[in-house]
């Protein structure tokens, strides 16, 4: 519908995220981390009795909210995604393998570190947690280095 701009400026989107973080603390005394919601959703799927059901709603909410913003913006378009990899001449199967492998490493690392970009990167740092600041600095630095290596290996395609 193009009601939303192509991309919210970061100085609007960032403070909005910050207010959501503060809001969930004020309402529920809980951080807005995403990887914990994956864990609860996995527990719900296994039928664990100690599942925190609202985290599953939260997980579903992220999906619905993303769709809503897309409808109000460019509109939902069914496509593969990862155009940069397609443009580099990678086959759909190869792209799927790379994305799957990357996501597995990411999930494993998030569980080991105890958080992800939202958990450690925003909610933990905002609580002034030394562990979160250290983890965030580490994943930021590693991501920059790995991206540099990817760019070199693909001759600038990625």
């Amino acid at each position: 519908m193009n009601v939303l701009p192509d991309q919210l400026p970061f100085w609007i989107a960032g403070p909005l995220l910050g207010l959501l973080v503060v809001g969930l603390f004020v309402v529920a005394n809980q951080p807005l981390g995403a990887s914990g919601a994956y864990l609860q959703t996995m527990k719900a799927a296994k039928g664990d009795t100690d599942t925190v059901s609202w985290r599953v709603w939260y997980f579903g909410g992220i999906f619905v909210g993303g769709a809503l913003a897309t409808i109000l913006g460019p509109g939902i378009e069914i496509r593969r995604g990862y155009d940069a990899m397609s443009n580099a001449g990678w086959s759909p199967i190869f792209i799927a393998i790379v994305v799957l492998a990357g996501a597995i490493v990411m999930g494993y690392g998030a569980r080991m570190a105890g958080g992800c970009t939202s958990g450690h990167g925003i909610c933990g740092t905002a609580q002034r947690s030394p562990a979160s600041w250290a983890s965030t600095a580490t994943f930021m630095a590693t991501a920059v280095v790995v991206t540099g290596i990817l760019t070199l290996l693909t001759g600038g395609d990625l």
Partner: protein
Amino acid sequence: MGNRMNLVGGLFGAGFGFVLAAARLHEYDTIHETLKFESPYVFGLMGFAIGISLPLLWILERRQVETVYGGRLTLSRSRIERHHIVGGALFGAGWSIAGTCPAPALAMLSSGATYGAVAVVGLFIGLWLRDRQVAAGATTPSIGDGEHRDLRTTPLGS
């Protein structure tokens, strides 16, 4: 409070997903342009999110605010341990390769990019692999400061 908390969780998730998609953080290019230092977008967004939430949470903590459903506001601050660093490094590598992180992967999928599903499945596999190791007693679970906490049993830092 069960049903009401589910609604709260769903709404916060939707708000989170909405902002992520409106910020195009679910796009590979947004992440990679920042990691290649071609754009300050993601750094700026995280900086503004922390810049708003850190001081607000600090003030609310000092005022010993009572939250709506979770008792007195308690922030958690853990000491830095090895798993925060090693896990963070793995997470950063996966983040760069898959070009997305846990919450944006959901928004990617709901924006119509089918390979978002590959990332979501990979994340579940990675989290599950780590959980399996923990269950087998090979290692201890990591409870991050920015992820879901059990307010009845988890002793909160400082």
